[in-house]
């Protein structure tokens, strides 16, 4: 009985739930897999298990009251969300902020980008079988960043640090020594990860050529961030539509070649090095002045609409704010990067094995807080 005979024996589809409570779905995401043995025939994603109706809630919060909610969107990179939202409202009010506040925002956002990428790399390596070691290494480094943020704004995860028109507190004394020490420490650690993980044979075997995302498919699905750059598209908002002081800082954009899971990991690893460079330059060029906000907390922008997008660690976070002259936004739409990055998953996964879906999900680095809003 040779293989041609094994083909025409029909095998039934096996339906299984990779459901909301699963160690490697990075949050409450439910994937319904149609399997033929180990091969995945079809995968439909069910999201909405963390839908906290942020947009409905935003219509009953003043512009300043909504800032803490943006922390809970992409709760691993809260500084970047704060910055995105606050810059959108400032554009609505066409408000200028002091130079020092701009530099502080860049430093905080880039440090949070490093912390977010560390979690992405740690959980990706854990999903590929390196059980706890890389995750605990990455969390050890992340704790150092958390200490810096703890000193700057007093919180570990949801900072609520940025205000419309500036930041809440000025940088405490001696924080730049601490950040400089961290940058030197982190550079040696990133080389360790490169040496430990990147060219490890098991790691390569599990993630090379898995989840190939071609360039035009990525753009068509409006995938953004490291996932898009890993597919070879050199597109980064900090360089192509510079905001704050990014055009004054010199850094380059890591780009992958063929957009597989290994490339996405490698782009994130390189981006940590670039972010360290940015923080170093921004710290050096930090001007004097008072970054805190002097104007009141109730803003009544004139009726208008704006759309502003910023480069989050996971992609382009966009805020579409429509104001009607009152202190409450008429409509606030949050364009979340993980929402579009996740939409690619069912297409990447067809024909692969179950273990590969875990690898692709880890490499796409999605986060359910901002997917479900």
């Amino acid at each position, binding site marked *: 009985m040779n293989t041609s005979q094994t083909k025409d024996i029909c095998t039934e589809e096996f339906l299984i739930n990779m459901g909301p409570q699963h160690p490697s779905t990075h949050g409450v995401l439910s994937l319904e897999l149609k399997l033929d043995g180990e091969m995945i025939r079809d995968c439909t994603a069910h999201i909405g298990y*963390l839908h*906290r*109706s942020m947009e409905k809630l935003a*219509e009953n919060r003043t512009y300043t009251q909504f800032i803490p909610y943006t922390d809970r969107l992409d709760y691993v990179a809260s500084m970047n969300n704060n910055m995105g939202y606050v810059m959108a409202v400032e554009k609505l009010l066409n408000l200028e902020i002091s130079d020092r506040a701009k530099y502080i925002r860049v430093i905080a956002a880039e440090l949070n980008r490093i912390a977010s990428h560390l979690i992405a790399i740690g959980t990706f390596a854990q999903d590929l079988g390196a059980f706890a070691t890389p995750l605990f290494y990455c969390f050890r480094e992340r704790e150092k960043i958390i200490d810096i943020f703890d000193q700057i704004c007093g919180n570990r*995860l949801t900072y609520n640090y940025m205000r419309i028109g500036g930041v809440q507190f000025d940088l405490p004394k001696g924080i730049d020594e601490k950040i400089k020490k961290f940058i030197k420490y982190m550079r040696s650690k990133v080389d360790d990860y490169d040496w430990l993980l990147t060219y490890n044979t098991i790691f390569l075997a599990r993630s090379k050529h898995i989840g190939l995302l071609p360039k035009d498919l990525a753009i068509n699905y409006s995938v953004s961030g490291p996932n898009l750059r890993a597919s070879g598209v050199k597109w980064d908002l900090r360089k192509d539509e510079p905001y704050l002081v990014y055009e004054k800082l010199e850094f380059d954009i890591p780009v992958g070649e063929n957009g597989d899971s290994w490339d996405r990991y490698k782009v994130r690893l390189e981006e940590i090095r670039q972010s360290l460079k940015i923080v170093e330059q921004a710290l050096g060029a930090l001007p004097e002045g008072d970054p805190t906000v002097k104007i009141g907390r109730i803003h009544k922008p004139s009726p208008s609409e704006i759309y502003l997008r910023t480069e989050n660690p996971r992609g382009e976070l966009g805020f579409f704010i429509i104001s009607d002259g009152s202190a409450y936004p008429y409509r606030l739409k949050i364009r979340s990067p993980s929402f579009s990055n996740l939409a690619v998953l069912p297409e990447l996964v067809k024909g692969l094995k179950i273990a590969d879906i875990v690898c692709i999900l880890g490499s796409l680095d999605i986060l359910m807080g901002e997917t479900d809003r």
Partner: protein
Amino acid sequence: MAVTERIPASKLIQRIPGGGVFLTTSENIFKWGKASSLWPMTFGLACCAIEMIATGASRFDIDRFGAGVFRASPRQCDVMIIAGTICVKMNDCIQRLYAQMPEPKYVIAMGNCAISGGIFYYDTYSVTKGTDSLGIPVDVFIPGCPPRPENLLFGLMKLQEKIRNEKDADK
């Protein structure tokens, strides 16, 4: 009976005079065993899950309290740490998971959202206001948004105290 008061080991164990033999009731051994090896379920919903992972990581190290073994399936878990916002779509999943846990089971509601809906109490149509409204008996509430890892560890110690002091008929 104040839960905070901790039964000293000496009351649990009596020593036979002149010998190295100790006497204790089997119930106390079970309580000691249950209290010091609480296996939590990997059940992160939202931001509190990141703090739970940070507690499990090397700096705060939940393993010192015997609770570091995060099991994925409810069949092997003793405590369900609800870390994050419970949404309407997730209601019956949580109730099913709680029901599928074997009997000596405990629930820790971590974070304001798990206690009462937290900052999503007002104006949201899709957030259930707290774990109690699901009909799940909660043993320890840990306030905070998200609670710092030290709070989670303190909540765990409170649960361990509760287990040590609970009457035999409870669980």
